[in-house]
């Protein structure tokens, strides 16, 4: 009957399409625990691994993940998969070095496996809150390291290819320590989007102290995914078109355009009395004014003759360029401000422990 119940739970978990990811992880955990309690170990192991595999916002919380790992350890012990049980127990220790299982729920051989994993695993755990948005350089992403001893470790952000992006901490600590990362690399710039990790490893001195040169080495790895949401920036203005620039040296066309209105206006003023009041005797004032206007036109023509430097136009063009440069610089500054103010999304994954023999 119990086996039938567990099989039913497993099948219902497989066929439940309407539940969200968050509900699925919790439901899978509950069903996995129930399967363990009715000794349906194969189905229980499958359910618990599925629950632990859920990522993102629907992933199990810290306590539930520890619970799932504890039951998976017990399930693997019950299935006579001791190596697998030890590996799972190590994950549990990495997740929460201080985890204390309920002595009444789990049999002694399961607790023994946990003790063995605790002895073999480093005494350091790493914990991060869920997805976090920070402004690089202004806010901080916080990771808590826990330890039952006082290990001397180094913690660093590394890129996918293992390159150290920034060292967060080097030294020993007791109980726990919060590592704060401001989202910038060692040179003070936000790293590009991609996969990174916070890697915690014992220092060489710690390795010598604990392993004596022949023990095991280890590293804790907390995967991180960095993403920068697109920032709304303003496009830089195009440079002023050639049509806006004035010639900086006189040419024939420009000289004639200066001469023509002067001569035309001068002549018009001189002949005005004939047009307007031909019956009256006009004074010589029209000759003075008309002559002045015509002379001004000739002077303008001479000042713009071909090859002549035109300081006014040179200054005008310089102002045009300077205004454009100032405008572009201002927009660049505003864009940089917006990029600086933009938040970076940090998505931590499940921490993993890597162990290996030291040389």
């Amino acid at each position, binding site marked *: 009957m119990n086996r039938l119940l567990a099989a039913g739970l497993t099948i219902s978990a497989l066929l439940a399409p309407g539940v969200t990811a968050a509900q699925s992880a919790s439901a899978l955990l509950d069903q996995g625990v129930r399967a363990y309690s009715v000794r349906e170990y194969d189905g229980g192991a499958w359910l618990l691994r599925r629950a632990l595999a859920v990522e993102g916002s629907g992933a199990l919380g810290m306590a539930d993940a520890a619970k799932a790992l504890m039951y998976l350890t017990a399930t693997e012990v019950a299935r006579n998969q001791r190596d697998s049980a030890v590996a799972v127990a190590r994950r549990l220790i990495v997740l929460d070095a201080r985890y204390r299982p309920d002595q009444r729920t789990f049999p002694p051989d399961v607790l023994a496996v946990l003790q063995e994993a605790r002895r073999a695993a480093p005494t350091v755990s790493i914990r991060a809150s869920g997805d976090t948005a920070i402004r690089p350089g202004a806010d901080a992403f916080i990771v808590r390291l826990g330890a039952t001893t006082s290990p001397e470790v180094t913690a660093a952000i590394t890129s996918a290819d293992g390159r150290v992006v920034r060292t967060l901490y080097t030294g020993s600590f007791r109980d726990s320590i919060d590592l704060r990362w401001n989202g910038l690399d060692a040179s003070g710039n936000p790293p590009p989007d991609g996969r990174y990790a916070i890697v915690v490893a014992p220092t060489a001195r710690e390795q010598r102290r604990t392993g004596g040169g022949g023990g095991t080495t280890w590293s804790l790895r907390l995967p991180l995914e960095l993403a920068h949401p697109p920032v709304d920036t303003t496009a830089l203005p195009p440079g002023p078109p050639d049509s806006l620039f*004035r010639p900086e040296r006189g040419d024939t066309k420009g000289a004639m355009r*200066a001469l023509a209105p002067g001569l035309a206006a001068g002549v018009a003023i001189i002949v005005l009395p004939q047009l307007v009041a031909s019956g009256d005797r006009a004074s010589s004032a*029209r000759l003075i*004014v008309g002559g002045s206007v015509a002379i001004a036109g000739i002077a303008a023509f001479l000042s713009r003759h071909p090859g002549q430097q035109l300081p*006014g136009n040179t200054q005008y063009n310089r102002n045009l360029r300077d205004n454009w440069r100032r405008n572009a610089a201002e927009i660049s500054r505003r864009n940089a401000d917006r990029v600086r103010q933009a938040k970076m999304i940090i998505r931590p994954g499940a921490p993993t422990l890597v162990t290996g023999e030291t040389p």
Partner: protein
Amino acid sequence: MKRYVAAIACGVIALPAALDAQGVQFTVAGLASQEIVQSHIDATSTRFTGPILGLEGILTSDRLLVRVRYAQGRINPKGGDGGGLLGLGTVDPREVVEGEALVGYRATQWLTLWGGPSARAYTMGDSDERWLIWTGRATARGTLLPGRMQTFIELYGAFSGNVGDPPLHAGGRGANGGLEVRLGETGSFWGRLGYRMESTHASGLRETVESVTLSIIYGLPQ
């Protein structure tokens, strides 16, 4: 009359700040001219000369413009061929008041079309003579040195008009031209040298006005 001049002066002083806030450009100018008036009544002609002082203001909003001008002075008889204006043996000097209020449309960058009334009043002892002419005008501008020196020519003709009491139908035409020069490299003041000639006529009457005007303008001349 002095009260009117004072009121206009106050307006010209107070208006710029308010207009600037509305995106309206303005220019104001002080005028000083030497005017020559040739007055013909039937076969009698008299020539007057004298200084005229005045103010001019232009408001510009995109393509629309408004121009007002006011001037006054005293002109004295000079020479003459006898009789006098009123059929007396001597000719009295004249107090002259003239003004215009025009609305303009900038058809192109260099051509502006105007329309509106132009008035001139002469006071001679106890009598006066008032001309009111409705004119249409075209002003052409040419640039000699960009931002430094420009010329202008304005031609105008009368649509209708009247003079005297009872009113006589009047007509006329005129022209105005000159040179505008910026005072200083980047200053807001311009100087203008202008020559104006206009002739108005009614039954038995003809007035020809010729003037040379020097102006100081604040703002870009339009």
